């Protein structure tokens, strides 16, 4: 589905990573399958024609930036401007550990979640195996997800997307005496603090602009822009009048413990140890409806204590920093076009938000879908007489 679509809109994939079944598009080297990131093509030097659709992407977290990149590479003749009040390192995405272990969205069909996860995994897998990995902050990491009881399902929907998924052996479980079963696998970690600047750089190389500005109302973007892509996360409560999105507060500790090479995640998702390039993320908590961005000292002590119970060597961790993020949570990801109309003016908006704690896991898949929706908007704008898909 992905490959068909990309051939329709943009035959060459110069930047993005599509692992196509039959072959691959990689103009730079001949590495078969598991493709690579190529350097940007000459397209970046080409001026946009006068009838380019002017796209404003609101939000510069992982959704805003990845959607901006997909649009600039895949949607025909669009100019992209990313507008946000916060850029890395001040976004929610910078707090997230960025480990690719999906949560589930109750309102989204499982096959869709699997598709988004697979697209994201394949994209990041190629980055992780390329020369860009260090700069992009993307790398492989192996580890264990452990359960205090035996889980009912045999394997989660994403078991065949990650690498080497299997049940833990008895010998491995001895490391976790309070847990009865577990899964061992290799997945990816994608660190906001490196990945976001890397995305920004790629967007700028493609001619995209970054603007720091707080948007209070999407109509502010009219008439300067033809289409708005709304990646404002929790900001959509105001910008889209969406009362279904709410924060789930997460507190983490980012510590120095460079000897920790494996992730450990308790099946409940509340306690986890995620080693990254620059630090190890220890978490966490899920406080529904809590907007408080100030770290709570008692929670920090609790997190450290729970993580040390799983990995006692963490008692030697140093340079402990507390961070808080608010997961932009919703029963389902909102991927939808809305045509705003007011006093005879029209403003198409592609909504792309509401990923909760699963943002990094799904971001590339949903960004591709948002770009598809955007391309449909662009088509509609260019053929006003045709029936609108909106």
């Amino acid at each position, binding site marked *: 589905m992905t490959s068909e679509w990309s051939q329709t809109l943009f035959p060459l994939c110069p930047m993005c990573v599509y692992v196509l079944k039959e072959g691959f598009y990689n103009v730079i080297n001949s590495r078969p399958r598991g493709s690579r990131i190529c350097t940007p093509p000459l397209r970046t030097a080409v001026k946009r024609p006068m009838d380019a659709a002017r796209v404003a992407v609101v939000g510069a977290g992982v959704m805003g930036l990845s959607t901006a990149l997909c649009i600039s590479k895949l949607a025909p003749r669009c100019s992209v401007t990313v507008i946000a009040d916060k850029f890395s390192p001040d976004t929610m995405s910078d707090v997230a550990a960025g480990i690719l272990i999906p949560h589930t969205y109750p309102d989204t069909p499982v096959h869709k979640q699997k598709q988004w996860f697979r697209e994201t995994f394949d994209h990041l897998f190629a980055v992780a195996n390329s020369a860009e990995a260090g700069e992009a902050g993307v790398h492989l990491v192996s580890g264990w997800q452990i359960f205090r009881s035996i889980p009912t399902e045999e394997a989660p929907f994403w078991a065949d997307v990650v690498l080497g998924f299997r049940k833990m052996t008895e010998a491995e479980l001895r490391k976790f005496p309070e847990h009865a079963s577990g899964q061992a696998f290799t997945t990816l970690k994608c660190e906001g603090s490196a990945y976001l600047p890397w995305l920004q750089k790629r967007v700028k190389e493609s001619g995209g602009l970054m603007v720091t500005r707080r948007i209070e109302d999407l109509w502010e973007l009219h008439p300067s822009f033809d289409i708005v892509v709304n990646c404002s996360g929790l900001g959509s409560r105001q910008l889209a009048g969406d009362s279904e999105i709410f924060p789930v507060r997460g507190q983490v500790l980012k510590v120095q413990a460079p*000897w920790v090479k494996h992730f450990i995640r308790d099946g409940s998702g509340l306690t986890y140890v995620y080693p990254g390039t620059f630090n190890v993320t220890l978490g966490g908590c899920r406080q529904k409806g809590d907007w408080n961005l100030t770290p709570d000292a008692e929670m920090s002590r609790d997190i450290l204590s729970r993580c040390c119970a799983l990995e006692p060597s963490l008692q030697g961790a140093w340079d402990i920093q507390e961070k808080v993020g608010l997961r932009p949570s919703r029963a389902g990801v909102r991927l939808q076009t809305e045509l705003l109309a007011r006093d005879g003016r029209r403003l198409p908006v592609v909504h792309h938000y509401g990923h909760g704690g699963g943002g990094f896991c799904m971001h590339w898949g949903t960004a591709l879908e948002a770009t598809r929706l955007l391309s449909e908007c662009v088509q509609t704008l260019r053929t006003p007489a045709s029936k609108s898909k909106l």
Partner: protein
Amino acid sequence: MTPGAHAGTMRVVVIGAGVIGLSTALCIHERYHSVLPSLDVKIYADCFTPLTTTDVAAGLWQPYLSDPSNPQEVHWNQQTFDYLLSHIHSPKAARMGLAPVSGYNLFHEAVPDPFWKDIVLGFRKLTPRELDMFPNYSYGWFSTNLILEGRTYLQWLTERLTERGVKFFQRKVESFEEVARGGADVIINCTGVWAGGLQPDPLLQPGRGQIIKVDAPWVKHFILTHDPDSGIYKSPYIIPGIQALTLGGIFQLGNWSEANSIQDHNTIWEGCCRLEPTLKDARIVAECTGCRPVRPHIRLERERLRFGSANTEVIHNYGHGGYGLTIHWGCALEAAALFGKVLEERKLLTMPPSHL
């Protein structure tokens, strides 16, 4: 002065302060100090950390692929792994230089499973998607092993020994006789690749290795490649340490040079970058060379030497090749057992030997 002049004295001199020397000293002291209060252990060495061969080692726990010629070595490897594994839950693991690490062993064709497949954790074959990451290889294993960083572990061992009152002396020992006449009752010979200087050993040869240490904290897995035509350690390998990543792939039998070679640097760098393209921008932090003490099997045995009117027991413990860290504790236990026999023979034990 004749050795053993004081009734009940037991003066032990360990020659060598690499992983073998220090771990053997610690093992003997731990086991016998409480039953033999007169036990006095000293360490003589001409070099200490960070200048020993152990300091150059990447520190990955993994024996060679082929079965050892001495089946006892299988047991010693297992004992070492179990001993280290029992420490990974401890808060002091990182201070020992110890941590679990997972990774890949890569081959050009299918090979039989190694003898240590059930010692490491989670041993399995690689899946096709995993092999896609390594275009030049078509078969491999994934396992969870351990890292025991040489330098950090030696520092930790030094601290433990110092706490126990073991004294260190910087000196170049020219002969066993010199140490015996100095008052030693038992000499533990842990002189590694230089053992031939104390007693000729045609089976012992240097296996020169060179490594590059880089800063690449995003690499969390070891990657060892194997080429049956080249031989062990001659094919590129990448091993994460606590702070730095070790790149290697050099094994030159008979080469005593301890100087870094530019040619070897290029071999390592090109081989490892081909294996792991993400290394392209990694910063080099150090480069070093060491000579592995290569021998067809480890020399771990007693020898009674006579100097003047007294017998001096020598316990040899050298020749661990490229798997010293991997096998060290099992060998230390064996050396301690041999030492126990010496004590029995000299009727120095106040407790029955089975207590130990």
